[in-house]
């Protein structure tokens, strides 16, 4: 019971990182049907931004988090503008390869500029471990969980309540119709990239605090995992991405806890395949059947 509780907490912390990342995948996919392969690398950029502003400018946690979000939002918008926008009417597989190219560029550009070495993330918050009911919970875990949940609620409010959020939903359903009612497609897509990338930037800072170590390739694996999480939840669905993220995190720590850590990724992929076979569009995804 105790280990179960412990794993639950670890799984939720990891899952909230996946969830933050999965949100970016799901929003971008929902709006332009692109698997933004470079999304994991934006998260890496967020972590590096945090590293430099804490070390160089002595930012505190809140300032670091906010500035990383703004920085990543700008990067996300620029990437969309230069690399994806020219391909908006091209075959989708072309845009996917371009996204892979952008991912390579960010990874190798960062390696070139800052070397491939891992570096330890400055501890802007001293770690305090609480012992509650025999469970070890660190303040970092609570902060990760709290920040992630807060950001998800804010995101939900932005999407549901603001004009821009409504435009996003309209474009996701039918870009042509949205344009007819006067929605600016380019602005809406830029806004989506900004939101998604800001979430990734926040996740980057949080993971720096949690794992203490960052490097230019750190975005690859979590990026793919988060995409898997978004697909499990039903890609295009915002609540789906959160749910998928938490599920993936819990699954991973759960498998690790029963001593099968070598197979943790295999189990995640297996669950992904099974879920897709039962629900071909993920848990919250809508399946569209073509009308003949």
């Amino acid at each position, binding site marked *: 019971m105790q280990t179960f509780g412990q794993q639950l907490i670890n799984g939720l912390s990891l899952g909230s990182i996946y969830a933050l990342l999965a949100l970016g995948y799901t929003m971008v*996919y929902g709006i332009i*049907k692109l*698997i933004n392969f470079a999304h994991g690398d934006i998260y890496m950029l967020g972590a590096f931004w945090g590293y430099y502003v804490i070390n160089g400018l002595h930012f505190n946690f809140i300032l670091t988090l906010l500035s990383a979000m703004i920085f990543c939002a700008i990067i996300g918008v620029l990437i969309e503008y230069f*690399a994806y926008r*020219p*391909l908006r009417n*091209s*075959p989708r*597989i*072309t*845009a*996917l*390869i*371009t996204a*892979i*190219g*952008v*991912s*390579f*560029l960010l*990874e*190798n*550009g960062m*390696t*070139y500029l800052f070397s491939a070495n891992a570096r330890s993330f400055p501890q802007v918050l001293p770690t305090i471990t609480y012992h509650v009911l025999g469970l070890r919970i660190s303040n970092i875990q609570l902060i990760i969980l709290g920040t992630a949940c807060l950001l998800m609620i804010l995101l939900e409010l932005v999407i549901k309540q603001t004009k821009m959020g409504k435009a996003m939903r309209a474009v996701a359903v039918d870009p042509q119709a949205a344009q007819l009612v006067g929605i600016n497609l380019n602005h809406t897509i830029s806004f989506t990239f900004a939101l998604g990338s800001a979430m990734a930037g926040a996740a980057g800072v949080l993971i720096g605090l949690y794992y203490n170590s960052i490097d230019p390739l750190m975005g690859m694996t979590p990026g*793919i995992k988060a*995409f*898997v999480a978004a*697909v499990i939840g039903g*890609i295009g669905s915002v609540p789906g991405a959160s749910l998928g993220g938490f599920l993936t995190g819990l699954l991973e720590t759960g498998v690790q806890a029963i001593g099968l850590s*070598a*197979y943790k*990724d*295999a189990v*995640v*992929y*297996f669950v*992904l*395949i099974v879920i*897709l*076979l039962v629900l*071909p*569009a993920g848990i919250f995804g809508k399946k569209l059947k*073509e009308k*003949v």
Partner: protein
Amino acid sequence: MKANLKYNLAWLALMVAVFVLIDACEFFGIINSFIENMLVTIGINIILATGLNLIIGFSGQFSLGHAGFMAIGAYATGIITQNIATPLGFYLSMVVGIAIAMVAALIVGIPTLRLHGDYLAIATMGAAEIIRILINNFKITNGAAGLFNIPPLVTWATVYVLMCLTTIMTVNFIHSRRGRAVMAVREDEIAAEAMGINTTRWKLVAFVFGAGTAAIGGSLHAAYIQTIAPGDFNIMASIAILIIVVLGGVGSITGTFVAAIVLGALDTILQNFGTLRMIIYSLALILIMIFKPAGLLGNWEFSFKRLSQSRKKATVHD
């Protein structure tokens, strides 16, 4: 019938000519081991990408798990030839690899090929990762360390001949009633079904065929490079094959050849650029996609038949 013979002979002559050319360059020392390595890599990539192009470009199924089937071929060769270090052992291992890869493709394909588009891509990617993780944990595959000292049982000539063979088989497949059924599935599944085409079956045929050729690529890779590890067959490896297919033009086998050669040459040239290499490579990739969204050749295909027909037409017009 006679005309067919003529075109087949033209292709044969081309293949022999390229072989002789490479052989002569080897003989006169123009090709050093560095260049030979490049040529072999290009050859293996062509085998892998042609099979993936059959799946993506012709049957229209977006698979992102090609490296998983390649891994099966590589490990079959690695394990078997360490025990039977003869050319016969190599071919035996290749056949075993093909058979296992095809069975694996059936197991993966039967459930997943009912998914569409990106969902299929992510499911096949997951399946390939499962294969890799299993290899990573098995004793017989030597876990994460992989296999070393695999006997060097193939030369560039083996790779060249097998590249020609798999290409011939794939192209012949595409231009047969099977290939047309497979393309019908790509074009319109609903219409294909209404014409009595069993879409599930034909998707599976293309998928399993592609997996078989991927295993051949894997076998050659293991026997030529002599060292393999599970990490060589990760998602990035599948993506590298996908890049060749898309860069050349989805649905163009000629394009696959061109892209594999261009990327192979680019990679070799960029070796001198050190750490800048991957940056230039990724920029090249982005720029080619932006300026040539349909790939280098679109779906254009070189054909001796069309060449001679257009020449005839030209003389008529003169």
